[in-house]
C-alpha cells in the first residue's frame, strides 16, 4: 500500500469570518466538511491522508469564537480560545483553577499556544490502529485491532468497551465535567446547550463518532456556571513523559466542604473509557462523609468496580483507585 505522509489531499479551504457563516458552510458541505480549530489534530489526519474531506472550514478567522467573557452567572469561553489564554486568565485562575490546572498540563507550551478549548474537547481518540488508517470499527470496519490477545492496548479502556476500546484523550474535559460546564452547539435549527458529560458519545451508541456533533454542527462556546466557583479543586494527570504526553489517566474533582465533611462533589475521570466518565455513584457514596483517607479509599475501591482490563492495561485499575482517592482527600493527605 502506497502511503503518502508529506502532502495533504486537496480540499476546498473555506475561511468564514463569523460563526453563523461557519455553521452555514458546515451545513452546506455536510459530512464532506472538516472543522479545523487549532489544527493540531486536523493536520495529523490530513497529512497522513487518513481523512480526506472535500472542504475544510478553518475557524481561525472567526473572532467571535475567541475570548473569555466573565459575568455574574459564571464564565463563557469561546471554543477558539487557546489553552494558554485559559491557563493565564485571572478570573479562571482565581475561581475555576481546576480548569486552568488541567489545561496547563496539556501537551507543550507551543501546543497550548495554538490549541483551542473547542479542539481539545472535540479531538479524536489516539488509538494507533485507528489513526494508522486501519479498517477498525471506529473507522467503519468490522474489527478492533487493539482488543486482541496481542493488540497493543496499554493506553486503552478499562470501562465502557463496546467493540472499540480506545479512550477519550482530553485533559480539559474532566475539569469541565467537574465544574458542571455546558457546551453550546450551533446547529442548523438554532443554538443547543448540553451538559459537559452529554457532549460525548460512546461506541455503544455510535462507534464512528466521539461527540454529539452532527455534520453541520459547530461547538461555539463552553459556559461554566458560578455554582462551583472557589470550591476545593483537585486535578491530577498521569502520563508516561511528564514534559509532553497524552494522559494515561487524569482525574478532576470539585468539592464543597462543611465542617470537614463533603457537602457537594463532582468527580470525573478520563482516559479510562471511550467517553469521559463522571463518577456519580462515587459522588453519592461520599456525600456527607468526611474528606479523609478512609472515605478516599472507599471511593477509590468503588470507582474501579466493574473495570475490565485488557491484556496490557491492568495497571489502570490501581492507578484509578489511587487517583480517585487523592481527588477525594487531596494529594497531601493521601501521600
Amino acid at each position: 500500500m502506497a502511503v503518502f505522509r508529506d502532502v495533504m489531499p486537496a480540499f476546498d479551504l473555506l475561511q468564514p469570518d463569523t460563526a453563523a457563516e461557519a455553521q452555514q458552510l458546515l451545513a452546506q458541505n455536510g459530512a464532506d466538511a472538516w472543522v479545523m480549530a487549532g489544527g493540531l489534530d486536523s493536520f495529523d489526519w490530513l497529512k497522513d491522508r487518513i481523512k480526506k474531506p472535500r472542504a475544510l472550514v478553518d475557524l481561525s478567522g472567526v473572532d467571535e469564537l475567541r475570548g473569555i467573557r466573565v459575568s455574574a452567572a459564571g464564565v463563557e469561553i469561546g471554543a477558539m480560545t487557546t489553552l494558554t489564554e485559559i491557563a493565564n486568565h485571572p478570573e479562571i485562575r482565581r475561581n475555576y483553577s481546576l480548569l486552568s490546572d488541567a489545561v496547563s498540563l496539556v501537551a507543550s507550551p507551543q501546543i497550548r499556544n495554538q490549541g483551542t478549548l473547542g479542539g481539545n474537547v472535540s479531538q479524536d481518540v489516539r488509538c494507533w490502529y485507528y489513526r494508522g488508517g486501519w479498517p477498525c470499527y471506529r473507522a467503519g470496519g468490522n474489527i478492533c485491532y487493539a482488543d486482541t490477545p496481542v493488540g497493543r492496548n496499554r493506553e486503552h479502556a478499562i470501562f465502557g468497551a463496546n467493540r472499540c476500546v480506545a479512550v477519550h484523550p482530553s485533559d480539559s474535559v474532566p475539569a469541565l465535567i467537574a465544574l458542571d460546564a455546558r457546551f453550546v452547539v450551533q446547529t442548523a435549527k438554532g443554538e443547543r446547550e448540553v451538559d459537559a458529560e452529554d457532549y460525548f458519545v460512546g461506541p455503544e451508541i455510535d462507534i464512528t463518532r466521539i461527540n454529539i456533533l452532527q455534520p453541520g454542527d459547530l461547538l461555539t462556546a463552553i459556559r461554566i456556571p458560578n455554582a462551583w466557583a472557589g470550591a476545593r479543586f483537585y486535578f491530577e494527570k498521569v502520563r508516561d513523559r511528564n514534559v509532553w504526553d497524552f494522559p494515561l489517566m487524569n482525574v478532576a474533582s470539585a468539592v464543597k466542604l462543611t465542617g470537614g465533611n463533603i457537602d457537594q462533589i463532582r468527580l470525573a475521570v478520563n482516559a479510562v473509557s471511550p467517553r469521559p466518565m463522571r463518577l456519580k455513584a462515587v459522588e453519592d457514596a461520599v456525600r456527607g462523609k468526611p474528606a479523609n483517607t478512609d472515605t478516599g479509599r472507599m471511593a477509590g475501591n468503588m470507582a474501579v468496580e466493574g473495570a475490565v482490563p485488557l491484556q496490557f492495561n491492568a495497571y489502570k485499575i490501581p492507578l484509578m483507585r489511587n487517583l480517585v482517592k487523592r481527588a477525594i482527600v487531596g494529594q497531601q493527605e493521601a501521600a
Partner: protein
Amino acid sequence: MNFLQWARSPWGQSVPIHIAWSLIWIAVIAGFCFMVVHALYLIVVKPPKRFAERKAEAAVAAVPERVPRHTLTARLFHWIMAASMIALLITAFLPRVGIQFNWVVYHWIAGLVLTASILFHVVHSTFFLDFWSIWPDKTDLIDARNRTLRFFGKDAPLPSKFAKYPLENKLYHAAVMVAGLAVIVTGLFMMKRVQTGIFVRNPYLFSDMTWGWMYVLHGLAGVGFIALTIMHIYMGVRPEKLPITKSMIFGWMSRDFYLEEHDTGRWAPKGAKSDSGKGLAASDGD
C-alpha cells in the same frame, strides 16, 4: 453503485468489510414495490379464483366447522420468531439510518432467541409435524405451470386447490430458511468478535477476507429480511389472507374458507381421512 464496502487490511490486502448501507433502502423500496405491484395486479387484472374439482368430495362432510391449522406450539414458535426478527431488524438497521441507541447487546440477544427458536422449529417440524407439508411437491409444480400458462391465455387445465400451504407460501418459507440460515450461522461466528460474556473473544478466528465475506453475507441476508418482512406483513393483512393470519393467532380456520381454498385430498382436516389414507395427525401442525 457499489454494493459492498471494501477496505485495505494491515497486510495490504483489499478486503470486503460489509455491505453498502444504501442496500437498506433498496430492500425497503423492493418490499414496497412488491406491495404496489401485487395490489395493482389484484385491482386491475382481477384474476378469477378458479380451481379444479377437489379430489376427495367424500371427505367434505367430515370437515369440522373449525379446521385446526396451527398447534399452540407452532403458533408460539411463529410469534417468538417474529418478535426476535423484528428486534433484529430494528437493532441492526435503525442505527444505520440515524436513530442511535445501544444496539449491539439487544441485537445478539435477539439473535440467540431466533437461533433457539429455529432449532426448536427444526426438531418440532421434523419429528412432530408433517415435515413435507411446507415443501413444494409435484402437484405444486404442475399447478404453477398451468397457472402460468393460463395467465398468458394458453389452454391449460385448472390448477388444484391448495394443500396446507400454497406454493407461494412454500417458496417464501424456503427464502426465509436460506436467509435465516445465513444470518444465524454468520451471526454466531460474529459473536466471537464482540464482548458477550458467552464466547471468548477471538477476532482472529478467521482471516480478514473470510470475516469480511461473513459480514457481507450477514448484511445481505439482513437486508433481504427487510424486503421479506415487508412482503410477509403485507400478505398477512390483505383481506383475502386474513383467515390464514387469524389461524396463526387462534389456531383454526373456518370450514368455508378451508373448502374454498384447500383440497381435502391434499390436506385433510382433523378427524377426516384423506385419499392417501393419512390421518390428520400427520398434517395438522405448523
